[in-house]
């Protein structure tokens, strides 16, 4: 293309034509999956610094991978904490509930009961274990793939489903796209359709907590792709400058719709390294390892709660399902890539750990699955009785006009009257 170069763009010493680099995933549809370019540590390999250590001594944590569960399901290394069996079992249940919930809602979307749905298959450990490390009163600023936070906090499943169905019991009165839940009471900030905006809002919430001398901390959530957004930077700057009590979570599930993580990552080896550039302790953690997630979360929670400031965490995982009900990943990645994911499945791994330590059996597991499926079915039946997007009772069109402002201004009242609602 050298005929395109203007004469005046040529300098003296310019022999080499410049080249634009375009990232490309290792494998595309039809290829055999291959994750060999990703660097993972072994379970137990990464050190565990004190929460009070100076951030600049911790930059190595941004390139390793904190893992606790080894291939035999044993908990090993410095991040292996003594977590009681009940906690682990409730974590297992929460993950399974999340997965069954997703399965059911996806099915309902396919059956036309709603317009849209998004699963978090394969990523359940991250939100479920993280939520268990938080306290009530703390606030999450989630993306659309942290339904596990709500489920782990005991939020009524039938209300989640009612939101997905946009039915007459939808707490958001039909206004929001399915999965865009909101619950102040359960520490779950209203989800935005615009990527990354929540990340800096989380920092602001944490700043407010500090301004008010409260002890509640905040957690921001973002996907690997969305770290490219500007508000990722805003959040890092604000958190770093004001030492805000916030945990900034990057869920790196390798994909952003059809775009491989390398487009957001660029030349850096890991997303966690972004935090080092802001002087923040930054952990890179196996997001499919419930025990690692729990331990790293608890570590960051302690840091924030004790006025030692923000922590950035990159959770390494894989988006096993489609991006959303509108997406078909088989057109941009190998069909069986999820199965080849080297960090396995989080539910399976926790189950094997529990069996390995003698706290669980295949039979227990089967029974739990039945119980979980039963719980989902009952919630679903209840939610459907309140209507779905296509059938049954619905939020009122009057609701279109309400809640735009605290009090309805005249011009909206007029529009409502003209509309006849």
């Amino acid at each position, binding site marked *: 293309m050298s005929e*395109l170069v203007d004469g005046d763009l040529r300098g003296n010493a310019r022999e080499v034509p410049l080249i634009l680099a*375009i990232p490309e995933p290792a494998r595309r549809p039809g290829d055999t999956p291959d994750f060999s370019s990703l660097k993972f540590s072994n379970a137990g390999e990464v050190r565990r610094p004190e929460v009070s250590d100076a951030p600049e001594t911790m930059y190595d944590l941004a390139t390793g991978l904190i893992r606790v569960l080894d291939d035999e399901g044993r908990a090993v290394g410095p991040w292996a904490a003594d977590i009681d069996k009940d906690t682990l079992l409730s974590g297992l249940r929460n993950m399974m509930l999340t997965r069954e919930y997703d399965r059911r809602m996806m099915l309902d979307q396919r059956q036309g009961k709603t317009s849209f749905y998004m699963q978090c298959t394969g990523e359940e450990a991250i939100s479920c274990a993280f939520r268990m490390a938080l306290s009530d009163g703390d606030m999450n600023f989630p993306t659309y793939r942290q339904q596990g936070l709500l489920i782990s906090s005991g939020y009524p499943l039938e209300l989640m489903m009612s939101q997905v169905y946009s039915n007459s019991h939808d707490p958001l009165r039909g206004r929001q*796209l399915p999965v865009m839940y909101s619950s102040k009471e359960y520490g779950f900030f209203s989800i935005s359709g615009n990527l990354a905006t929540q990340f800096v809002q989380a920092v602001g919430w944490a700043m407010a907590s500090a301004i008010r001398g409260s002890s509640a901390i905040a957690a921001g959530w973002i996907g690997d792709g969305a770290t*490219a*957004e*500007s508000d990722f930077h805003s959040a890092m700057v604000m958190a770093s400058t004001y030492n805000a009590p916030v945990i900034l979570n990057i869920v790196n599930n390798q994909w952003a719709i059809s775009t491989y993580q390398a*487009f957001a990552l660029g030349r850096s080896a890991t997303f966690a390294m972004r935090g080092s550039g802001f002087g923040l302790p930054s952990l890179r953690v196996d997001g499919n390892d419930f025990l690692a997630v729990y331990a790293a979360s608890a570590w960051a929670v302690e840091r924030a709660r004790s006025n030692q400031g923000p922590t950035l965490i990159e959770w390494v995982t894989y988006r096993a399902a489609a991006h959303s009900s509108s997406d078909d990943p088989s057109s941009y990645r190998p069909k069986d890539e999820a199965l080849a994911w080297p960090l396995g499945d989080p539910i399976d791994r926790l189950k094997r750990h529990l069996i390995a330590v003698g706290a669980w059996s295949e039979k227990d597991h089967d029974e739990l699955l039945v119980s979980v499926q039963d719980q989902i079915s009952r919630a679903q039946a209840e939610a459907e009785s309140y209507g779905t997007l296509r059938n049954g009772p619905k939020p009122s069109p009057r609701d*279109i006009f309400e809640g735009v402002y605290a009090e309805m201004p005249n011009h909206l009242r007029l529009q409502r009257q003209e509309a006849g609602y």
Partner: protein
Amino acid sequence: MPTMTMIESIRDAHAVAMEADETVVVFGEDVGYFGGVFRCTQGLQKRFGKTRCFDAPINESGIVGAAIGMAAHGLRPCIEIQFADYMYPAYDQIVSEAARIRYRSAGDFTVPLTIRMPVGGGIFGGETHSQSPEALFTHVAGLKTVIPSNPYDAKGLLITSIEDDDPVIFLEPKRLYNGPFDGYHDRPVIPWSKHPLSEVPEGHYKVPLGRAAIRRPGSAVTVLAYGTMVHVALAAARDFNIDAEVIDLRSLVPLDLDTIITSVKKTGRCAVVHEATLTSGFGAELCSLVQKHAFYYLESPIERIAGYDTPYPHAQEWAYFPGPDRIGHALSRVLEG
């Protein structure tokens, strides 16, 4: 002549423009390998290579900012914002930069840039997949704003936009991508192939900016519309038996004021239709121009039929959408007034 959907004709416009001019480059979120979430750039990477059509990180400001830098170098970028609802992070680069670089540098640097984005509702997309932000562009000096209503115009206008030496905001009514939509959401979808304006010439042709099209001549009332609402307005005229002159504006800036004023002087009545929220929508500008230039011809107040001044709701989409019924009743008011 082949018939095409709007997606196909947009894809074709890209290919024609890229074929004709090596400086045309295309990029955006998911537009490279995958070909865009609405598939409007499908096949381009394969055909023109990875440095002519490629994926971008999710950073709208970065996409527009980088495109401005490329344009300053002499390229002609045509970029996609995945949904118009996601253009806000890029708004500074669009308003403070793309729109003003020619002016502030006295022509030293220019920005021949096209920014495509899907607009409008009707797909149960909720508040962040349904917006129509055209007025946020028409207020900005230095931008042109274009919005086609059919495959023929989409291709011709997109080629013109890419070849234009100034930044053009190219709005694509997503509800029209796969077929004309007259607002009756509960009736079967009609394919584009049944519509005459889906006949799209092969190769290069242009539809000029600033030239409206009269889609239905009439004498009772002038209806100004664009994008999806052209089809809805036509349905309203048909079903309410109103002899409306329906004008498809096609480009908002520059605007074909002559066609508008000539029509209003003939009909003596006027209504404006858009999906965007009413207050400070582009309909307000149209009203102001019509009342100024045809004041003594107007027999009744100009009506605006528009989105309500609320966010775009999900479940109540069809109560919110300005459908044929709402338009028909408004037109009746204009006729009575």
